[in-house]
C-alpha cells in the first residue's frame, strides 16, 4: 500500500479517506509507476497495483504526446494543477481525469530527472454531460438547417408547380387557336394555288386586244410580285407556326407537372430537347450549344423533376459563362450516354470553373458564389435532392479552375423513387 503521510495537524484517517477517492501515484525518474493506490488500480481497471508497477505513464495516456506536454509544464513550473488528460483503461475504455502533479519534495524545480507524485480525479461523468449537451445542440442546429432547406425546397417546388400549371394553361390556350390557324393557313394556301391556276386559265381566254390592258392592270397592282411573294409568305408563316407548335409542345412536356406526379417512362434525350427549347432564350446570346446525344433506353422517373434538374444545370452553365465578363465564345456541351444499368446526362461549360475548396460544397443548400441577390444557392441543392434522394441516382461535378465545369447526372434504369 502506498505510503502517503499527512501533516502533523491533519487527522490521518480523514487524510487517507480523502485520498482514497482519487488515484494517487508516484513515478521514478523514467516516468514509470513506482507506486499507485487502490483507487488508481480501480480507475485504470487493473486487478492489483503490481500489474501497474513499472508501466510508463505515457502508456496509460490515450495520447502519449499529452504526457510530454505535462513534462514540459513540470520542467517550467515544478508542478501541474488540474491538467485534463484522457487515460486508457486496461480494457481500452477511455476516461477523462484532472491530473495534479508535483515534483518530489527532494527535487529542485527544473530538475527533469526527479521523480514526482500525481493525483488523478475522474471527471468522465462531467465531460460526458457536457459532451451530450453540445451534441444535442449541434444536432438541433443540424435539424434546423435541414428543416430550413426542406422548407425552401418545398416553396421552390410549389413555385415551380405554379409556373408549370401556368405554362400548361398557356400552352392549352395557345394550342387551340394555333390548330385552326395552321389548318386555315394550309387551306388558304391551297385556295390561293387554286385561284392562281384559275386566273391563269382565265388569262388564256383574254382576247388579244385586251391583253395590253390586262398587263397594265397587273403592273399597276404589282400582281406579279405579289404572286411571287405569296409562296414565300406562306412558307415563312408555316415555319413560324411550326416553331410555335414546337414551343407549345415543349411547354406541355416540360410542365407535365404538379405536385405528386407519378413516375413515367421518359426518354432523357426528349426531356433534354424540350428543356433546351425552354432555355433557348438564355442560350442564344454568345453561347454555342454542342449536342452529343446517344440513343437512350427510357427510364422511369418523375419527368417534371428531371426537367427541372436539366434546366437548373443549363442555367447554371449559362450563368457560369456569363460570370467571366469576357467576349470570348462560351460553349455548353450536352452529352447523353447509355450505360448497362442506367443513363447518363452531362452538362459541360467552359466557364471559370469551380475552386477546389468550393467543389464539395456546390450541392449544399444556400451555397452560392454569385453576388448577393443574384442566386439563392438552391438550384443545385434541389437538383441533388431530386436526383440522389428522390430517384436513387447520382449527381456529381468535376472542374478545373479556369477550364470550366462538368455536371453529370446518372439515373438508374429501374427507377425506384422516393414516395412524395
Amino acid at each position, binding site marked *: 500500500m502506498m505510503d502517503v503521510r499527512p501533516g502533523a495537524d491533519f487527522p490521518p484517517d480523514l487524510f487517507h479517506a480523502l485520498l482514497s477517492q482519487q488515484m494517487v501515484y508516484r513515478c521514478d525518474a523514467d516516468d514509470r509507476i513506482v507506486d499507485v493506490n487502490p483507487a488508481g488500480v480501480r480507475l485504470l481497471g487493473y486487478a492489483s497495483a503490481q500489474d501497474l508497477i513499472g508501466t510508463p505513464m505515457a502508456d496509460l495516456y490515450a*495520447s502519449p*504526446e499529452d504526457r510530454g506536454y505535462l513534462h514540459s509544464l513540470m520542467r517550467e513550473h515544478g508542478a501541474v494543477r488540474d*491538467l*485534463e488528460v*484522457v487515460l486508457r483503461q486496461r480494457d481500452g475504455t477511455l476516461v*477523462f481525469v484532472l491530473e495534479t502533479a508535483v515534483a518530489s519534495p527532494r527535487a529542485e524545480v527544473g530538475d527533469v530527472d526527479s521523480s514526482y507524485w500525481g493525483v488523478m480525479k475522474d471527471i468522465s461523468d462531467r*465531460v460526458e454531460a457536457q*459532451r451530450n449537451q453540445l451534441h444535442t445542440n449541434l444536432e438541433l442546429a443540424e435539424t434546423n438547417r435541414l428543416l430550413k432547406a426542406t422548407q425552401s425546397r418545398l416553396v421552390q417546388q410549389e413555385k415551380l408547380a405554379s409556373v408549370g400549371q401556368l405554362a400548361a394553361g398557356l400552352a392549352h390556350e395557345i394550342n387551340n387557336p394555333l390548330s385552326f390557324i395552321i389548318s386555315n393557313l394550309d387551306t388558304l394556301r391551297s385556295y390561293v394555288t387554286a385561284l392562281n391556276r384559275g386566273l391563269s386559265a382565265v388569262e388564256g381566254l383574254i382576247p388579244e386586244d385586251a391583253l395590253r390592258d390586262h398587263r397594265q392592270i397587273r403592273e399597276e397592282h404589282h400582281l406579279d410580285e405579289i404572286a411571287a411573294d405569296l409562296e414565300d409568305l406562306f412558307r415563312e408563316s408555316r415555319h413560324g407556326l411550326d416553331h410555335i407548335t414546337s414551343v407549345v409542345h415543349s411547354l406541355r412536356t416540360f410542365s407535365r407537372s404538379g405536385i405528386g406526379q407519378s413516375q413515367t417512362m421518359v426518354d432523357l434525350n426528349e426531356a433534354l430537347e424540350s428543356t433546351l427549347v425552354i432555355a433557348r432564350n438564355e442560350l442564344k446570346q454568345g453561347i454555342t450549344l454542342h449536342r452529343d446525344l446517344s440513343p437512350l433506353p427510357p427510364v422511369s422517373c418523375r419527368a417534371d423533376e428531371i426537367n427541372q434538374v436539366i434546366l437548373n444545370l443549363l442555367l447554371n452553365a449559362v450563368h457560369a459563362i456569363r460570370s467571366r465578363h469576357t467576349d470570348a465564345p462560351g460553349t455548353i456541351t450536352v452529352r447523353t450516354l447509355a450505360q448497362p444499368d442506367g443513363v447518363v446526362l452531362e452538362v459541360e461549360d467552359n466557364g471559370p470553373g469551380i475552386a477546389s*475548396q468550393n467543389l464539395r460544397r456546390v450541392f449544399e443548400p444556400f451555397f452560392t458564389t454569385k453576388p448577393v441577390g443574384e442566386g439563392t444557392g438552391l438550384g443545385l441543392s434541389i437538383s441533388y435532392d431530386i436526383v440522389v434522394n428522390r430517384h436513387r441516382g447520382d449527381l456529381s461535378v468535376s472542374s478545373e479552375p479556369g477550364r470550366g465545369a462538368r455536371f453529370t447526372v446518372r439515373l438508374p434504369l429501374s427507377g425506384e423513387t422516393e414516395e412524395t
Partner: protein
Amino acid sequence: MADMHASQQLFQQFNNEHNGLALQVQECPPEARGLSVSGHLDTTNAASFSRVVHAWLDECGGVRELWFDLAGLRYISSSGIGAFVQLLMEAQSRGVALRLLDLGPNVQAVFDVLGFSRFFVLEK
C-alpha cells in the same frame, strides 16, 4: 471584408493577456479568413478564446470559410473542443464553413474521443 489590421490588433491584445495561447491572422484566399492557433487551449483560456474569435467572426462579414491552422496547438482539453463546437454552430448559422487544419494526433484524438470529428472539416 474584415480589416486585417483591426483583426491583428484584436489578437495582439489577446496574446498580450494570455500566456500559453497565441492567435495570429493568416493569409487566405479572398473568400476565406485564416487564424493560426498555437499553445494550449483549455479551461483556463477557452472562454476568452471563444469571445475573441466570435468578435473576429463579426468582423468577417461576407466570407464563406474560416480556416484554423492548428499545427502549433500542442494541447486541447474538452473545454477547448467545446469552444470550437460553439464556434461551429455560430459559423453555420451565418452560412460560414469552418476548416480545422493540421491537427496534431493528440488534438485530433480529443475530437475523436468526444465524438465531434464528424461535425467538423478536419484536415491533415
